[in-house]
């Protein structure tokens, strides 16, 4: 089950969606918005995505996870729009007969989601300003973008 939503994620509903009498293990991972990132305080976050592709990539993640592990159910919910501190930006829930599959699939799903699914977050800092987060890339507090190392070629 795949969902992109602007509404708050209800962890109990996500969990309920993967429960089953066939399952001996249920794993829920929540990514939540932290107050401090690298020592700087965040006041809120905004998430945006490329909707059609985010949806198809999430569906592909679920299909790949089901091919790799014997899952009973799998749910991936990603929040979009404006989030306050402490809110969940993503919920991943899987159920399986045995726990190893649930742990492995859950960790693979969040790792691969963060690597591959076209969703971006913007950190809105408590001291003002906001930065889109592009891993491997940083932006000066004021002014234009820069790369971590000076550009060395075209």
């Amino acid at each position, binding site marked *: 089950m795949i969902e992109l939503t602007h509404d708050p994620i209800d962890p109990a509903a996500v969990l309920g969606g993967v429960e089953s009498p066939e399952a001996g293990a249920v794993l829920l991972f929540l990514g939540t918005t932290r107050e401090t990132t690298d020592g700087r305080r965040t006041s809120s976050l905004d998430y945006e995505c*490329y909707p059609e*592709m985010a949806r198809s990539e999430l569906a592909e993640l679920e299909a790949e996870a089901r091919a790799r592990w014997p899952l009973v159910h799998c749910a991936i919910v990603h929040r979009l729009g404006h989030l306050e501190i402490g809110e969940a930006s993503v919920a991943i829930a899987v159920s399986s007969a045995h726990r190893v599959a649930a742990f492995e699939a859950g960790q693979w799903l969040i790792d691969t989601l963060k690597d591959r699914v076209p969703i971006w977050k913007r950190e809105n800092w408590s001291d003002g300003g906001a930065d889109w987060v592009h891993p491997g890339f940083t932006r000066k507090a004021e002014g234009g*973008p820069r790369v971590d190392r000076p550009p060395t070629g075209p």
Partner: protein
Amino acid sequence: MKVTVLVFAMARQLVGRDRLELDLGDGATVGDLRAALGASHAALAPLLRGSLFAVDQAYADERTPLVPGQEVAMIPPVSGG
């Protein structure tokens, strides 16, 4: 041929729009689009280097050919989760 480039996140912020129109030569590939985009929108150049492109909502490689009217998405490093 004309193609449309969807831009997101910092790229959208840098160009102040969520889509750009580019005019490319016939037979252009994703690699050609990348070069043209960096030339026409210099502010995108640093971010372009770490970005991928998607054609038909799937990641494409540099040799993927484009067709007239194609919609291509520039995918800067993602930060979901």
